[in-house]
C-alpha cells in the first residue's frame, strides 16, 4: 500500500515545506503546464470529475460537481475560499498539510481559481493555527515572488490574489456560511440556505469553498491523471485520505492512505489498541459522527460509502478509538459539553437543546439519573436533528443517538446503580 503520496508527498524530505522541496516533487509544474499550454478550464474540471475527488472537510460532496455550480462566465467578482478551520475534535490533518506542504495547497488554489474564474481567494485558518498561519504567510510571499500569485501569473494574463485570514476560535466558523460571515467581519453565524454560496457567498457574490485537503489534492490529480487518482480508492471514492487516528492506540497520528483501506489495516499501522486492550468503540469521522462498536468497525472499509452503510460517516477522517475501559457515558458527556460550548446560539433547538442534553448526561454520569431520562435524551436529540439552520444540530444529535443505540445498557446501569459499569467491572 502506498503511503503519503498525495498531500504528504514532501513529508519524507528535510524541511518539507520549502518551495525548493516542493518543486523537487513536481510542485508548480502542473500550474505552469496549464498556463503555458492554455489548457481550457473545462478540461481540468472534467479531470477533477473523473478523479472522483470528494470533499475532505466532512460532507464528502463531489468536488467537480461543486465547482460546476459556480457560473464561470458571470461578469462579476467571484471568490474561492479554502477552509482550514479544522475544528472537529479529533481532526488534525489540515494543520499538517499547512505545516508540511503549504505550497501544494497554494498551487491547488491557483488551479481551482483558474478553473472557476475567480481572481481573489481567501484562506481561512482557525484562530489557534498561529504557526501554520506564519508558514502559509511565508509560502504566499514566496509564491508572489515567483510570480505564481498576483496579477498576470507567469505572463499568462491570469490574475489571482490570495490572502490568509485567521479566525477567532469558534468551532462553528468551520461551517462554510459562518466562515463567510467571519471573513466579512461579522459574528460567525451560519446563513440559511438556499441561497448557497455558489450563488450568494462572500459579500453576496458567487463563492466556492473547499477544504484544505481537497484543494491540496488537485495538483497531484493533474500530475498523475484522474484515472490514477480514482484507482487509488474505490468506486466514487477516489484518491487517498489522511486519517487522524487518536485515542487508545499505540501510535496516534496522521496517516495518508488510499480510501477503501480496511479499518483493521489502519489500526495495525497505528500500532494497534494500547495496553493490549480490546477495542470497544470507534468514532470514524470526528466527534460529530455516529459512534460504531469496535467489532462493526473491524469489518468496515474506510471510505465514504462503506462507512455510510455501516451506520456512520467518514466525516473528516478523524478516527477516535476507545478501548474496553472507556465509560461511554463519560465519553458522551465530553462530546456534548464541547457542542454545548460551541453552539453559536442562533437557532433555538441547538442553543437550548445542547445545554439540556449536556446537563442531563452529566447528571446521569454523576449518578443522579432518573428513569425516563434516556427516553427524554432520545427525544431531545430528535428535536434538534434536522430542525436547525446548519448541520450543527446533527453534530449534537448523532453522537447522542448513536451512543444510546449501541451502548444503552451502560447508560441504564448508570441510572439504575448510580455508578459506572466499567469502573465497577475494573474493580
Amino acid at each position, binding site marked *: 500500500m502506498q503511503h503519503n503520496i498525495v498531500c504528504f508527498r514532501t513529508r519524507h524530505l528535510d524541511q518539507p515545506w520549502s518551495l525548493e522541496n516542493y518543486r523537487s516533487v513536481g510542485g508548480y509544474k502542473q500550474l505552469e503546464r496549464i498556463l503555458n499550454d492554455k489548457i481550457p478550464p473545462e478540461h481540468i474540471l472534467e479531470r477533477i470529475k473523473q478523479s472522483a475527488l470528494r470533499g475532505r472537510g466532512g460532507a464528502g460532496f463531489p468536488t467537480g460537481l461543486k465547482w460546476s455550480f459556480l457560473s464561470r462566465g458571470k461578469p462579476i467578482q467571484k471568490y474561492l475560499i479554502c477552509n482550514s478551520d479544522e475544528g472537529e475534535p479529533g481532526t488534525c490533518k489540515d494543520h499538517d498539510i499547512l505545516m508540511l506542504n503549504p505550497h501544494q495547497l497554494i498551487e491547488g488554489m491557483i488551479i481551482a481559481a483558474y478553473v472557476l474564474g475567480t481572481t481573489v481567494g481567501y484562506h481561512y485558518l482557525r484562530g489557534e493555527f498561529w504557526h501554520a498561519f506564519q508558514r502559509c504567510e511565508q509560502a504566499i510571499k514566496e509564491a508572489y515572488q515567483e510570480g505564481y500569485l498576483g496579477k498576470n501569473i507567469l505572463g499568462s494574463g491570469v490574475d489571482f490574489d490570495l490572502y490568509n485570514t485567521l479566525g477567532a476560535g*469558534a468551532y462553528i466558523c468551520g461551517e462554510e456560511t459562518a466562515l463567510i460571515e467571519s471573513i466579512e467581519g461579522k*459574528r460567525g453565524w451560519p446563513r*440559511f440556505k438556499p441561497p448557497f454560496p455558489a450563488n450568494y457567498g462572500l459579500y453576496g457574490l458567487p463563492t466556492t469553498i473547499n477544504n484544505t485537503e481537497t484543494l491540496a489534492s488537485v495538483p497531484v490529480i493533474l500530475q498523475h491523471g484522474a484515472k490514477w487518482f480514482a484507482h487509488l480508492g474505490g468506486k466514487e471514492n477516489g484518491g487517498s485520505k489522511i486519517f487522524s487516528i487518536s485515542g487508545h492506540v499505540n501510535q496516534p497520528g496522521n496517516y495518508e492512505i488510499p480510501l477503501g483501506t480496511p479499518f483493521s489495516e489502519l489500526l495495525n499501522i497505528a500500532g494497534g489498541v494500547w495496553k493490549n486492550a480490546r477495542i470497544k468503540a470507534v468514532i470514524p469521522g470526528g466527534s460529530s459522527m455516529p459512534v460504531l462498536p469496535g467489532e462493526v468497525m473491524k469489518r468496515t472499509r474506510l471510505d465514504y460509502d462503506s462507512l455510510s452503510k455501516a451506520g456512520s460517516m467518514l466525516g473528516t477522517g478523524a478516527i477516535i478509538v476507545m478501548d474496553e475501559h472507556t465509560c461511554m457515558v463519560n465519553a458522551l458527556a465530553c462530546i456534548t459539553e464541547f457542542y*454545548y*460550548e*460551541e*453552539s*453559536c*446560539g*442562533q*437557532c*433555538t*433547538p*441547538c*442553543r*437550548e*437543546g*445542547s*445545554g*439540556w442534553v449536556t*446537563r*442531563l448526561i452529566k*447528571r446521569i454520569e454523576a449518578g443522579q439519573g*432518573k428513569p*425516563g431520562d434516556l427516553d*427524554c435524551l432520545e*427525544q431531545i436529540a*430528535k*428535536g434538534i436533528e*434536522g*430542525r*436547525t*439552520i446548519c448541520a450543527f444540530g446533527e453534530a449534537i444529535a448523532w453522537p447522542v443517538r448513536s451512543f444510546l443505540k449501541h451502548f444503552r445498557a451502560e447508560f441504564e446501569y448508570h441510572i439504575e446503580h448510580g455508578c459506572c459499569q466499567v469502573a465497577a467491572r475494573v474493580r
Partner: protein
Amino acid sequence: MIKFEIDGKKIQAKSGSTIIEAADAAGVDVSHIPRFCYHSKLSIAASCRMCLVEVENGRKPLPACATTVTAGMKIYTKSHQAMQAQKEVMSFLLINHPLDCPICDQGGECELQDLSMGYGRTSTSFIEGKRSIKDKDIGPLIATEMTRCIHCTRCVRFCSEIAGLRELGILGRGEHSEISTYVEHSMQSELAGNIIDLCPVGALTSKPFRFKARAWELRARAGIAGHDCLGSNINIHIKRESDSQPERIMRVVSRTNEKLNETWLSDRDRFSYTGLYHADRLARPMIKQIGKWQETDWETALTVATQKLQNVIAQNGAQAVGGLISPNSTVEECYLFQAWLRSLGVPHIDHRIRQSDFDHQIQSPLVWSTCKCVQSLEETTSFLLIGSFIREEQPLITSRIRKATQGGARVHVINPVDFDFHLTLTNRCIVSPWGMVCSLAAIAQVLFGNDKKKLNIMPKPIAELIRQQKPNTVEHDIARDLQQDKAPLILLGALAQAHPYFSYLRVLSETIAIEIGAKTLHLTDSANEAGAWLATALPHRRIDGVSIKEPGYNAKAMLAKTLKSYCLFGLEPTYDSAYPELARTALQQAECVIVCSAFKNKAMLEYADVLLPIATHLENEGSFVNIEGTRQSFQRSVNKPFAEARCGWKVLRVLANFMGRPGFDYQTVLELSSELSRNLENDLQSEHIPPVDFKPLPTVSDNTVWRCGYWPIYRNDSLVRRAEPLQVLTVEQDLAKLRLGAALATHLKVNNGDRVSVSSDHPDAKPVTLQVLIDQRIADATVCLPSGLPDIAINGPLSVVRITT
C-alpha cells in the same frame, strides 16, 4: 402568481413570496403559522424555528419564513411532522424561559404566552437548573429582563435595519448568548421604543409603563400622534376610572398605517404621554386678581376673560389684539380661533411662531405639500435636504429615507451643522445659514445659470444671487445628480423654515424643482402646520382662501409691535417662539393676556391674566392634516380630559358665545368639521396674485457669526418638554453650550470651556453667558446653540449673533 396548497386549501401568491407571507396574505382562515423571529418589516433570520412546516417531498420540516413557495407546492402546517417540530421548538424555548407569567409585565400580551397555549405542554420533563442573565440598563425608556429573552433578534435587526444605529447585538455564544449594548449605555436611537413592541416576550418592556397596569385592564382608543408632521397612527391605552384613581392614559403604542408610520412609532410620540400628569398641568381655570392667581370655575374665568378683552377692544380697537395659536392645534381649533378673533375684528392672527421671514407669504400656495409622497420616499433615488436635523425632526420619515439609501438612493444635504442622520450621505454642504442660501443658488446656477430668459423672469435679488455664485465641486455634483435623476425630491426642514431668508430658500428650491422635475416637501416640525394654513390661522388670508389686501401682523411682527392684548392658544411663546426675548417683553407689557393652555410655566404666570385649561392632543377630538395633505380625524380617547380641562374647540366656542358673537353654536366637533370641510373646498379655488418684492440681498461681512438654533427633539412642544423619561435623554447641560468649529474658535480667540457672552444682533439684546465647546461638525462662521432651552432666550434661531469674550 403561483398556485399552491396550504393544508389542502388551494391558494395563490406572488412569485418569490415566502410560505409565511403567502399564508398571512391568505388570512387566518387558511392557516396561522406560529412565529417569533419573523417580522414582516425586518430581514429574515429563520432562527427561532417556530414556523417549521411540512412540505411535500421535503426531507425535513422547513422554516416557513425563509422558504419561497413554488408552483404546485403542498404545504402542511398542522400535519404530524409540522406539529411535532413546532411543539419541540416550543419546549426548547420554554426550558430556560421563566414560567412566571403572572409577575411578568408582558403577561396577557405576550406572543410566547399565547403560542405556548397552543403548542406547549402542561407538564415539563426539564428538571435541570434554568439559565439566568443579568439585566441591562439601556436607558429610561426600555426596561430589560434578559432572562426572559428568547434570542429572536428582532430588536437587533430593528436597530441596524430601521433605526440605522447598531446599538444592540448578541454577546456570548450558544446558551450564553445575550442581547446587549456591549458597553452599557442608554440607547440613543429616537426609534428605540419600537423594540418594546417587537419583543415577543417580556425581555424588553416599557419602563415608564412597567407594572402600572395589566393589558386586560386597558381599553385602546385610536389617536393621531402630535409631535411631527407625519401624523403617525397610535393607539392610546386608557385605564378606566377606579375609586382610587380617575380615568388615565397609561401608554401609547403604534397603530399600523402602511401609508404613514408602517408599524413604527417614534419615541417622542410613544412616550410624550408621560408628561400628561405633570405638576405644571392646568387643572382648573385660573384668574389673576390684583397680582394673585386663584383657581376658579369656568363661568367666572370666561366672564373675566370676556370683560378684559372687550375693555381692550373698546379702548384701543381690535387692532390692539393679537392671536397666536400653536401649529400643533387641531384644524377645528385653528378654524374657530381665527373665526372668533376675526368676528371681533382682530386682524393679527398667526400660527407661524417659528418663522422669521414672512416675505412672499402672499405667494405661498394654499396647500403646502400636496404630493402623497411618504410611501414613495422609499422608491425615491435622489434627495436634496435643505436645513433640517431630519433625524430629530421627523424620525420616521428619516427611516423611510434610510431604507431608500439602503437601496442605493443618494442624499445630499445643505445644513449649518453636520448633523448625524444615521444614514449614508452622498454630498454635504456644511455652511453658515447665509451660505445655505448661496449653496442653493450655486446649484441653481449650475442648472440654468446661463439661461438669461429664466433668470430675467425671476425676482431680481434672487437672479442677482444666482449670477454671483461660483459653484464648487460639491454643488456641481449635487446639481448633476439631481438633474440626472428621474424624480428627485427636495426636502425643506424646520431650519429652512426658521431661516431669515426662508423666502429665498423657498423660491430657489421651487425654481430648481421646476427646472429638474422634482417634487418639494416642507417638513414642518409641528403636527398640523398644513391644517393651520388650510384653516387660515394666518394674517393674510380669509377662510375662503382669498388673500387680504392689508394683512394683519405676522407672528414676529405681533411680538415686535407690543400690542395691548394677546390671545395665546396651546403655546408657551418663551420656549416655542423663534423670538423668545421679544415674546417675553411683549407679553409682559400687554394689558391683557388670555392663555388657553394645557400647561402653565413661570413666565406664563407672570404675563398672563386668565388661564384656561385645555386638552392635549391625546385627550382631544378633531383632526390633523399631515405633511402629505391627509386629514386624519380622531375622537376623544378619554371621557373627560384632565380635571376641569376642556377640549380646545369648546373653550373657543364658549368664548365666542360669551362675547356675543353670532354663529358659534356648534354642538359637536362634527358640525364644526363639516362646516370647515365646506370651506376647505373653497380653498382650492386659485386666485391671481401679482408678484411682490423681495427683500434685497444682505451684505455679509467676514466677521458675521450666525447661529444655528435648532429645536432639540425633546424640547419641541409643551407636552414633550414635560415628559420626564424623554427629558432624561436630553442632557440640558450638554445642549446649553455654545458649539463652534475650531476655525471660528481661533478667530474669536476662545478655547474649549471658556465662557463667552452671546446675544442676538439687536442693540438692546440681553446677552447670555455660555461655555464654549469646540465641535467640528459646525460650519464656518456659525455657532450652534439650540432653541427652546430654559433661561436661554435669544431671538432668531438662524440669525446673526454677537459674541463677546
